[in-house]
């Protein structure tokens, strides 16, 4: 089969699963059978992605392009698929992680009622379709369609436990914030259309600067860049596999993927790139600071995701697309691994809180081991996956003389290593909590995805040059001063973490250093800000609605009332005395007569 056929398969089989489950209520409500439908769909999609890459990059070099007119006949406003190295690899990453997560979910959500489980897997299938729509987009229009759809599924999945008020709140917050950012996408899209008449990735246009700036605004929302990252920590209200898939590996990385795809546009906009580098660098540092003081294991990972996305954005801002893309891929694997591993721990102790864990390594060696693999990969320890991509990013940033972002990334690297060590120490070692005493390893359905992802987290870094070749870049690992320094900083972070939270300390909660700063930033500033903004909007709404009801509508009522009162006043003339009536006649003839004579 040709790459385009395979890509269509990967695209539409999950959609088919979603539609099937969506329309067939009875099937959906059976729970596990429904889940198998979805998993089967994901497996087919994965097989398609693998087959595309297995077909060799000869077929992918020019890129298979297949479009149908959507808003009108003709290619200008078309949808379809575009399969080249970049999208093929991304397709593989997405389908692979999605498959892992879906299989994992079978175990993780074992205790959910069947109807809820069916709903969950319907969303999962829909997500895969939406994400593939975005990945395979032949133009920005379709990218936007996919972009919005993944946002929708994110909303639905965060709100999966919709009866929980905090989850409901988090779901709508996520939607509002990302949708607000999406205004940027829409504006950029419309501008591009207005100026070029189409939505091509490769458009050359004088407004590229504006368009890319707007696109980046959308990326800031979806990829959780400061200050639009506020939704991501709250999004952890969703089930942990969802966090792994959407809010760590794939959906939040869509922003990065978008910039990678739209490279020709961004290349025309150096200004935008510079802004990106600074925003990314700041986010990397900022989020890492907050991650240090989190007590909820998922929140640690969420801020870590934020921070890592900052890395990618900085790399893209430095103009090194491949560095960003590479980190996207490795991050997808190890962060999904971390989340799923964390999920395994959570599943065991029924709590997200680090203080409820502790000493779990002994009870759950497999989960603990894979979690540690993920952590070291994230910390950038060679030869794990994160090392290579992070090294490349630092190198690229240095190469473009972006020293401020570079410094931020370096500090972030230290903090990353530090907080991951802290997390590992607090969760896996030290004195077990009461809840942790009955913890045990999950079943095979959860172990299998963990194993696959752990493997990838170890080896993915070595595929760098292959990936570069696939996507038309050049890359070979070589030692540089800045990269080495980065690694050293990372190791220093681990050491510090070990020193502070190691067995000697017994996983004591943090009370030193930057704790107040982080707490302030997290709870004092950003949350307050979003609450204030929301409250302000509601207040404006209330004022406008009041004006509408009592002033605008009041004027309407008033004009009717004038008639009513006018009529009532006039009734006073009708006195009932017939001579007054004759007076009216007399008045009439006097006026008429005067008019007649004087005219």
């Amino acid at each position, binding site marked *: 089969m040709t790459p385009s056929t395979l890509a269509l398969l990967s695209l539409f089989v999950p959609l088919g699963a979603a539609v099937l489950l969506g329309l067939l209520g009875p099937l959906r409500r059976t729970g596990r059978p429904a889940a198998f439908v979805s998993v089967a769909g994901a497996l087919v999609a994965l097989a398609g992605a693998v087959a595309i890459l297995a077909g060799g990059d000869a077929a992918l070099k020019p890129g298979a392009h297949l479009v149908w007119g*959507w808003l009108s006949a003709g290619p200008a406003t078309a949808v379809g698929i575009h399969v080249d190295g970049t999208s093929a690899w991304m397709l593989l990453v997405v389908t692979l992680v999605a498959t892992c997560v879906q299989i994992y979910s079978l175990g993780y959500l074992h205790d959910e009622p069947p109807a809820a489980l069916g709903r969950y897997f319907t969303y999962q299938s829909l997500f895969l379709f939406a994400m593939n729509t975005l990945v395979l987009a032949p133009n920005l229009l379709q990218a*936007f*369609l996919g972009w919005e759809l993944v946002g*929708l599924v994110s909303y639905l999945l965060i709100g999966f436990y919709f009866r929980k008020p905090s989850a409901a709140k988090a*779901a709508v917050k996520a939607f509002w914030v990302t949708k607000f950012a999406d*205004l940027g996408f829409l504006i950029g899209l419309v501008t591009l259309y207005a100026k070029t008449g189409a939505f091509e990735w490769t458009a050359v246009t004088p407004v590229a600067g504006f368009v890319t700036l707007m696109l980046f605004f959308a990326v800031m929302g979806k990829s959780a860049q400061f200050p639009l990252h506020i939704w991501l920590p709250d999004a952890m209200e969703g089930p942990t596999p969802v966090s792994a898939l959407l809010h760590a590996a794939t959906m939040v990385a869509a922003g990065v993927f978008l910039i990678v795809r739209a490279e020709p546009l961004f290349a025309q906009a150096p200004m935008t790139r510079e802004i990106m580098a600074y925003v990314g660098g700041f986010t990397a540092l900022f989020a890492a600071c907050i991650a240090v003081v989190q007590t909820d294991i998922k929140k640690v990972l969420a801020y870590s995701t934020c921070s890592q996305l900052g890395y990618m954005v900085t790399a893209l801002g430095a103009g090194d697309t491949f560095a960003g893309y590479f980190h996207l891929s490795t991050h997808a694997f190890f962060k999904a691994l971390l989340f799923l591993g964390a999920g395994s721990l959570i599943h065991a102790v029924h709590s997200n809180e680090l203080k409820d864990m502790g000493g779990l390594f002994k009870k759950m060696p497999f989960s603990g081991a894979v979690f540690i693999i993920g952590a070291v990969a994230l910390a950038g320890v060679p030869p794990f996956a994160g090392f290579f991509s992070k090294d490349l990013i630092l190198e690229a940033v240095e190469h473009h003389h972006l020293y401020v972002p570079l410094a931020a990334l370096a500090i972030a690297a230290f903090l990353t290593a530090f907080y991951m060590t802290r997390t590992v120490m607090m969760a896996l070692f030290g004195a077990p909590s009461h809840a942790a005493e009955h913890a045990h390893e999950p079943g095979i359905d959860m172990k299998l995805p963990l194993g696959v992802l752990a493997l990838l987290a170890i080896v993915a870094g070595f595929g760098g040059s292959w990936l570069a070749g696939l996507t038309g870049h050049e890359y070979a690992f070589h030692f540089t001063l800045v990269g080495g320094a980065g690694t050293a900083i990372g190791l220093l972070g681990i050491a510090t973490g070990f020193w502070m939270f190691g067995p000697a300390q017994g996983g004591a909660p943090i009370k030193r250093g930057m704790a107040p700063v982080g707490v302030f930033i997290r709870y004092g500033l950003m949350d307050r800000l979003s609450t204030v903004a929301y409250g302000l909007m509601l207040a404006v709404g209330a004022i406008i609605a009041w004006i509408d009801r009592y002033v605008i509508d009041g004027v309407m009522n008033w004009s009717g009332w004038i008639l009513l009162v006018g009529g009532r006043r006039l009734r006073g003339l009708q006195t009932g005395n017939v001579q007054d009536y004759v007076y009216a006649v007399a008045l009439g003839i006097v006026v008429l007569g005067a008019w007649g004579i004087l005219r």
Partner: protein
Amino acid sequence: MTDHILALTVAAPFVAALLMLLVPGRNHPVLRVIGVTGSVLSLVGAIYVALHYDQAKGGLQFAQNYPFVPSFGIDIRLAADGWSVALFLLTGIIMTAGSLASATLTNRPKEFYILLLVLVSGVFGVFVCQDLFVFFLFYEIAVLPMYLLIGIWGSKGKVAPAGPFKSLWKDLDVGGKEYAAMKLTLMLLVGSAAILVGMLAMYFAMGGKSFDMVAMAHFKFPREMQVWVFPMLWLGFGSLAGVFPFHTWSPDGHAAAPTAVSMLHAGVLMKLGAFGVMRVGMILLPEGAATWAPIVGAVAALNVIYGAVSAMAQKDLKYVIAYSSVSHMGVVMLGAATLDPDGWNGAIYQMFAHGIMTGLFFALVGLIYERAHSRWVPGMGGFAKVMPGVAAFFTLAGLSSLGMPGSAGFVAEFLVFAGAWKSGHLMWAIPAMIGAWVTAVYVLRATKMIFWGEGPSHEFHDLHDAKRVEWAALWILGTCIVAFGCAPRLVLDFIGKATSEYLPAIVDAAHLVAMGGGK
């Protein structure tokens, strides 16, 4: 037979209404069957028209003339263009869903169905009528039954006295259903008065011989006349389209109206207003339209954001949806004001998309109200547990309303925004886009407050999901939202065809106006 398909489609509901006169009022099943049959027949007619409209040829098809008042040059001229096809379909769909949704009505169904069917005949007529005068007649038929429909079958609301006009409350009974019905009727008829005046001005400017709209489109009215007649038509028709500040009938009217009436009114009738502005105001008076377009667009942009922000503050569910209609009709008017092909296509498509979406919304609100006996959003919560189907459809409608890709609403809004941008009116497009975002805020907030969270509290003891025939309406409309969102060209091609026929003349006129010459 097929030559007269338009007349047959227009007449089908009316004939059904006449048939009902013969049925005793107690015989509910027969009445229901006649009502639904009349609606379905008109839907079949609409589909027939869509299938047999020759897209390659375009223009006015299925044309038929029926003499009416020859001495004043009034004929019933029926013919369909691409827009008619799309809006015919919309009306058929909404009416079918509406008649299904009111199948559970037990209070005087005979009168209800008769009025509803007469109304919908008028709507069909407007969309295919090529005689300005008869256009107006159909328009009136579509508007007037509203009074009784709301007055008799409506529900009562209450508005606390406040504000600078507080003293009016004791005289006007603000908030009641009769107040709403009366306000709606009077405001719309004041609009009609303006339309009538504009219409007569056009009739006499053309020599007082004929109301033929095709002839009028070719006739070049004097610039000065266009410039004062267009605003008459804009505000006249616009009052039905909820143009600020003549939108205030809409929240009260929709909130008071019974389910099927809200569906039809917000779903189809408001479109008549916007359709009138475009079909009569803009196409027949291109220079007037070009002169006024900046103001029309600015008011429309205001409508979008104003309606959305107002909706955000509403606590009564029906008011939320009603204000959202005001906001969405702003999108339609914005598209119309762009005088750009994408903008116009978007405007008509938004009529279509919003019609279906809001029809679904009102159907759902009706279901919720029927079960919860309350429309007070803050008091609800957790309804998704007991009515998951309703929750799902409500979410779907909400997504269309906020312009989610894959739903019809996205296509429409996107085209309108693109049109606004292309016509160089950033200052319209940005408020409109922000308005679309505010839509997301209030729709999801409402969804959250109604369906999510803990609950439902025990005061809502007879909540249950949709049943039997109620599903039909939901499925019809829900399917349409997704189908027309995924495959917009099903109707967009028709719309685009007609737009491409009408627009060039207006663009030329806009150039003339911009140059200040062209007399």
